[in-house]
């Protein structure tokens, strides 16, 4: 309702209590309907006004009650007004008061600050005085810690304040204090150095540590660390020399004696690691983080010196250099006067790898410790500083004399290990034996045992480059040397013995003459050695296959060994991994070269041992007429003329290979043989003529053959014999045109492997098919 009021008001003001039609307008009206229209309009207006009036009247009560309420509120409003005025007055007052106070507070604040500064300065001056007095007293009492604390306090005073103080009224007093302090500082520094040197000379650890702790208070971090390191180095040197003396004296058990230099080096490195472990806390506490590098740099100098002594003695006592030279020259010229037994190198090779792995372990320990310490110290340092620190760490570790010495030892180790590997493999080849009933001969196992041993030894050195080099050499030995041995054995061929020649039923007189001539030359011994040669060939094929398998296994094992090494944190990341991966992939690619060799060998075997035998057996087919009638067909049924004997022959021929070859190789060989048979059969069949029953006979024969061959190999035979089977189908037709039931759109699931020309050719083999009919065929 409250909302409807203004709307009414608007309307009212718009019409202003007047009708929309003026009185003059009414008077001017002359027409009746005009009058009526206006009258109607006025009536409407009247009705509307009336209703509005009613609405207004109905509101009257409401308005009256509201008025009443307002009248009652009157006195209250007067009270409120009074209060408001009073409040405003108070606020104004408070405001001016606050402004007044705050400016005073500001002044106070300033005063307070100045006061603090004054107090600080006074404190500093007092401290200065206190330090001056304190230092004197402490020095007198030989309480160096206290004296150093005073000097440290002095050194950490704000130098500009001291400067200011000197310009103040008390300049002379301050100057005097300063002079005294500076003098005390110098004296203290000299004293502490002297006492530390004395303590070091006496080897008095308690005193060394005591004065070592004082150095950083005097701002002499580097000097303190250097002197402390000097003490530690002296201790280290003493122990190391004792150990080396013991080692050279050699009163140890035989077993350890073989590794005595590696052990001595280990003692040295472990000793240093222990020193770092023991003294890191004191350095950290008194010198702060980031200082370990400096200490270790000093220690490393002694480590290098002592390690070199051990290495020198090792080289000297183990005749390392000399052994290397002999190895080197015997590798250059295979006919060397002096030669080392590979076995003799075993201990020294082992010792070198142990030495290197210990050095790697030690360097890894240093890297970890220094990196962690730098990380704490450089938490807020700029990037350039962090990088600089990393670089100096890298330089320390990779270019220290210890690293260089180890690199040198490994540099000699690699050719010696290579020699060891080559010589041992040569030996294994020379002493190759094979026992009847075994598929492979001893040299394969021996050779891989050696290769694995050499690579494992290289791996145990923890040097990635050393490992990679040996993998490379192993690849070379396997791919060139060892493969060549097998290749040469295969190249001697699989002998076709005279006996076989007779079995083969060579009919030509010429070849008979030749064979008997050969027989005369060979005699029994010839046959025997031919048997050996055959066995040797088959064993070599097995050897080749095992080699290609072994290489893959070797690579897999090496991969898992390497990942173990990496998981221990050796080898700096991706680079090392990539290098090893590359070298290993070269190694594994030799496997396929052995596979190729196997394939070549099998082809050779197929050509020399199988083909010459199988061919005549198949040509026997020619002498069996397939132009036959019922009688002959039945006769064949009772007395198989060809296929059974052929199968027996094949069985006999292959028995030797089945026994002598690994199943995989035998399978491949039978596959080659079946290809050969299907090819030769095809050629032979095309030379024959067939009657209807002859075709049926051939179909039977082919089925027997395929059934037999299916049992001897896991390969699918049917595909290889598809053409022959299709030829049999054609030879079996009733009429020429019957081919159309199988041809083109009627071929169904059958895929023809014969061309239309070949189909005609086969059809023509049937003597009862007329060539015009064949010609007329639309294929």
């Amino acid at each position, binding site marked *: 309702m409250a909302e409807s009021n203004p709307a009414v008001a608007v309307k009212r003001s718009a019409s202003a209590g007047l009708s929309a039609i003026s009185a003059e307008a009414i008077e001017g009206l002359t027409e009746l309907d005009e009058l009526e229209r206006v009258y109607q309009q006025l009536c409407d207006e009247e009705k509307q006004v009336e209703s509005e009036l009613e609405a207004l009247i109905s509101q009257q009560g409401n308005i009256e009650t509201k008025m009443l309420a307002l009248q009652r509120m009157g006195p209250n409003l007067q009270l409120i007004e009074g209060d408001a005025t009073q409040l405003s007055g108070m606020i104004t007052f408070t405001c001016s008061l606050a402004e007044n106070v705050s400016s005073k507070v500001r002044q106070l604040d300033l005063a307070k600050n100045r006061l603090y500064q004054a107090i600080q300065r006074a404190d500093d001056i007092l401290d200065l005085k206190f330090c001056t007095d304190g230092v004197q007293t402490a020095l007198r009492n030989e309480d160096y810690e206290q004296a150093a604390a005073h000097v440290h306090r002095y050194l950490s005073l704000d130098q500009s304040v001291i400067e200011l103080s000197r310009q103040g009224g008390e300049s002379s007093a301050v100057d005097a204090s300063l002079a005294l302090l500076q003098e005390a500082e110098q004296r203290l520094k000299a004293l502490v150095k002297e006492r530390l040197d004395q303590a070091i000379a006496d080897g008095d650890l308690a005193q060394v540590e005591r004065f070592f702790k004082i150095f950083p208070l005097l701002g002499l971090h580097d000097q303190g660390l250097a002197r402390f390191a000097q003490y530690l180095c002296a201790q280290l040197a003493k122990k190391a020399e004792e150990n080396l003396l013991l080692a050279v004296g050699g009163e140890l058990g035989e077993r350890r004696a073989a590794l005595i230099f590696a052990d001595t080096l280990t003692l040295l490195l472990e000793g240093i690691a222990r020193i770092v472990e023991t003294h890191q806390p004191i350095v950290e506490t008194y010198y702060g983080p980031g200082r370990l590098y400096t200490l270790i740099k000093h220690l490393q100098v002694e480590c290098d010196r002592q390690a070199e002594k051990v290495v020198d003695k090792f080289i000297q006592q183990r005749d390392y250099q000399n052994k290397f030279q002999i190895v080197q020259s015997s590798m*250059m010229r295979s006919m060397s006067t002096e030669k080392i037994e590979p076995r003799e190198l075993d201990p020294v090779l082992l010792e070198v790898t142990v030495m290197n792995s210990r050095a790697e372990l030690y360097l890894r320990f240093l890297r970890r410790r220094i990196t962690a310490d730098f990380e704490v110290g450089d938490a807020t340092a700029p990037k350039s500083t962090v990088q600089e620190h990393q*670089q100096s760490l*890298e*330089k320390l570790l*990779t*270019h220290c004399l210890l*690293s*260089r010495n180890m*690199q*040198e030892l*490994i*540099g*000699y180790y*690699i*050719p010696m290990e*290579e020699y060891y590997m080559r010589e041992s493999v040569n030996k294994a080849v020379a002493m190759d034996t094979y026992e009847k009933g075994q598929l492979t001969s001893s040299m394969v196992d021996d050779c891989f045992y050696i290769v694995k041993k050499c690579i494992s030894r290289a791996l145990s050195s923890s*040097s*990635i*480059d*050393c490992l*990679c*080099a*040996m993998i*490379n*050499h192993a*690849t*070379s030995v396997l*791919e*060139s040397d060892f*493969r*060549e041995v097998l*290749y040469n054995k295969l190249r001697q061929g699989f002998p076709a013995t005279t006996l076989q020649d007779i079995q083969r039923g060579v009919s030509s007189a010429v070849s008979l003459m030749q064979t008997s001539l050969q027989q005369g030359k060979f005699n029994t011994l010839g046959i025997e050695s031919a048997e050996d040669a055959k066995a040797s060939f088959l064993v070599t094929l097995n050897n080749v296959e095992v080699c290609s398998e072994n290489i893959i296994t070797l690579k897999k094992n090496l991969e898992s060994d390497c990942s173990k090494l990496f998981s221990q944190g050796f080898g700096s990341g991706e*680079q090392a991994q*990539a*290098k090893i991966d*590359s070298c290993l992939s*070269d190694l594994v690619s030799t496997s396929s*070269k052995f596979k190729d*060799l196997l394939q*070549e060998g099998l082809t050779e075997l197929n050509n020399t041992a199988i083909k010459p035998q199988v061919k005549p057996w198949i040509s026997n087919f020619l002498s069996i007429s397939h132009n036959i009638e019922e009688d002959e067909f039945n006769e064949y049924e009772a007395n198989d003329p060809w296929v059974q004997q052929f199968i027996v022959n094949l069985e006999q021929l292959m028995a030797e290979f089945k026994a002598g070859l690994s199943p995989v190789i035998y399978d491949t060989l039978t596959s080659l043989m079946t290809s050969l048979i299907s090819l030769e059969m095809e050629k032979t069949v095309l030379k024959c003529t067939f009657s209807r029953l002859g075709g049926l006979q051939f179909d039977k024969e082919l089925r027997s053959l395929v059934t037999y061959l299916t049992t001897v190999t896991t390969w699918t035979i049917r595909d290889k014999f598809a053409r022959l089977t299709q030829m049999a189908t054609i030879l079996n037709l009733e009429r020429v045109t019957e081919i159309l039931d199988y041809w083109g759109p009627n071929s169904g699931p059958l895929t023809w492997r014969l061309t239309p020309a070949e189909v005609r050719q086969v059809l023509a083999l049937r003597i009862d098919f007329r060539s015009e009919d064949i010609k007329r065929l639309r294929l």
Partner: protein
Amino acid sequence: MSMEDYDHLFKIVLIGNAGVGKTCLVRRFTQGLFPPGQGATIGVDFMIKTVEINGEKVKLQIWDTAGQERFRSITQSYYRSANALILTYDITCEDSFRCLPEWLREIEQYANSKVVTVLVGNKIDLTEKREVLRERAEEFAEAQGMLYLETSAKESDNVEKLFLDLACRLICEAKQNSLVNNVTSPMPGEGKNISYLNCCS
């Protein structure tokens, strides 16, 4: 191999005296930078860069060996499988040139007979310090049947050319080789000498 995304894979091994700039050449080629304060290489470094030549992707495996004597035996184990060797010397260092015959003996002894060898004289930006005349080096290279190129790893002179020409040459030899191999299967360890072909001039 066919699974991988390249048509050819070649191994290139850099050899030569310490400090002649092998690492700088490799870094210039693979990363396009001249490393300041390059420390001596320890052992061997290994890097891969794939380039495209006449539409064929060629993956180059680059082995950067250490020149220092004590790493020689590690280096030697990489010769055999290398397709190409980059024999580097420093034109401002007569000594590094004089050592070349020794390096050639190593190549003779350890490398594959089919290996392609390029002689590189590095640091030509140091003109005023040159100790080995270009003609002398060219003569030497020709007598030894090597290609010759002068480079500056620092100024990036001829560095791309060095590796790309080499890759080209290797592609040619590979194609020539597979042609030969198709005719007669070679005996193991028996190298074939193939005359150099100028395929990418």
